[in-house]
């Protein structure tokens, strides 16, 4: 469980990026943190594995205050995948890249071997095992970065903009993968601008603006509220846009799911016939 209590954070240049944030993320939750550029999303999630320590307030990860622990120790439970894979890839082969963190955490060679194979398989990277990560495409590099974190099987996973540069198929795989993590009762926290991706996953949505949380609730509720989204410069997901336009005809407004939309349309059609 992650608990942030009224945290404030200022960068060296005196810019206050977080202005009093309180949030509790329970085990097994899937949370999407959204908001415009500079809203403080990345700053907030960097507090969850101790990369940043709050200037005021406190962050507790499973009851441990982040100021009293090291990033390495906290990372064992909170895996953080950075937005740009090029900020972490350095090994000669994909295999070594994935083994890097496992070595840092002191796993035995047998376990490392097993975990690397598992992670490669999970993200369909097995064929690149001996390839240099620098020779892979952008999307593949991103998956290597993700695999290198998943390999140690952290309890909580923080994904910073995971859908950038991914084609539709990979996005779908990512979504399925997050769902799979959910069935294993893992916590997934993602920072994203991708409304359609969030709409498909329907997680808990936390909306941020100017270093504050402006909304926190079910995806379906927040992503269908135009006034609230406008506040954070986010557009409605396409399905919600359509249903918003159809509202005067008696359609419900709070639809973000394709299957739900299909059902509603079919039902209306039946009635009309």
């Amino acid at each position, binding site marked *: 469980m992650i608990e942030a209590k009224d945290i404030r954070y200022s960068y060296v240049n005196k810019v206050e990026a977080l202005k009093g944030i309180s949030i509790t993320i329970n085990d097994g939750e899937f949370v999407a943190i959204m908001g415009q550029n500079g809203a403080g999303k990345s700053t907030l999630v*960097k507090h969850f594995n101790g990369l940043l320590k709050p200037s005021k307030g406190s962050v507790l990860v499973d009851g441990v205050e982040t100021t009293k622990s090291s990033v390495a120790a906290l990372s064992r439970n909170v895996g953080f995948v950075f937005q*740009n894979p*090029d900020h*972490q890839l*350095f090994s000669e082969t994909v295999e070594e890249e994935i083994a*890097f*963190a496992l070595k*840092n955490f002191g796993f035995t060679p047998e376990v490392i071997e097993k975990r690397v194979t598992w992670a490669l398989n999970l993200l369909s990277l097995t064929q690149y095992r001996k390839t240099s990560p*620098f020779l892979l495409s952008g999307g593949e590099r991103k998956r290597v970065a993700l695999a290198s974190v998943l390999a*140690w099987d952290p309890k909580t996973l923080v994904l910073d903009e995971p859908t950038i540069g991914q084609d539709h198929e990979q996005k779908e795989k990512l979504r399925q993968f997050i769902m799979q993590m959910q069935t294993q009762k893992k916590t997934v926290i993602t920072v994203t601008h991708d409304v359609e991706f969030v709409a498909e996953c329907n997680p808990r949505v936390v909306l941020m603006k100017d270093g504050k949380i402006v909304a926190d609730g079910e995806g379906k509720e927040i992503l269908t509220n135009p006034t609230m989204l406008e506040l954070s410069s986010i557009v409605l997901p396409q399905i919600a846009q359509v249903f918003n336009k159809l509202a005067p005809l008696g359609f419900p407004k709070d639809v973000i799911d394709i299957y739900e939309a299909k059902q509603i349309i079919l039902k209306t059609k039946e009635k009309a016939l």
Partner: protein
Amino acid sequence: MSIFDGLRFRKVYSPIHNLDPRIKFAYVIGIFVVAILFYQIIPLLILFLMQIPFVLLARVQRQWLRSLRGAAFLATFIFVVNVATTYFTSGYHLTAVNVENAGAMTLRFVVLVESFSVFFLTTSPDHLGLALEESRVPYEFAFAFTTAVRFVPVLAEEAQTIMDAQKARGLELEKGGLLKRIRNYVPVLIPLIVSAIRRSLELAEAMESRAWGATKKRTNLYALKLHRGDFALLGITAGIIVAAIYIHFFVHIPTIAQFF
């Protein structure tokens, strides 16, 4: 990375910012030469204090202090090495003069950092490039130089992100003996270099698609012209150099230790 902060230009209007970069550079080089000329602490101290009015006039004191703080580690290192070598080479014997000399060497370094910091804090990369061009440096080189200067803070920021990313994968930079600690930086340096190369390739493509090098003779939006203040600074620089040479050859410089 605070040492880089001291080199980062911020747009402020002050008499120092408006000075011609060529003259400012001549001044910095002047200070540089004078600092190398002396190994006694008193002239170096004077040299150090002489910069302060410039800093105040340019209103960059905060960034300037930050760059000095960034240099503190290296300065301490220089001081310790100097004291240690005299201690060990003079047969385990240390006098006040030895310490003073070590202080002087450190101060020399600080003066160099200080003057370069003032120069970079008050000179925009554009002016710098212009100055190089006007000094007949081929535009390609001038551009490469200004781009390098401009990218220093970007790289510093990137280095920080990379360190964060590797720390999040359990890397402990401060762990282990000296050799291990140096090895710890491999996972930071490789991504930094790779991404710098990648960035430069991208920049080259972007430049070419904006007609880089299309004509032999480029025109400039701004032109450099010498004003009264520039001549004044040139005079000051010449004065400092002449005075320094005179003092160096004809004046006996006391040590501080002599006064006690």
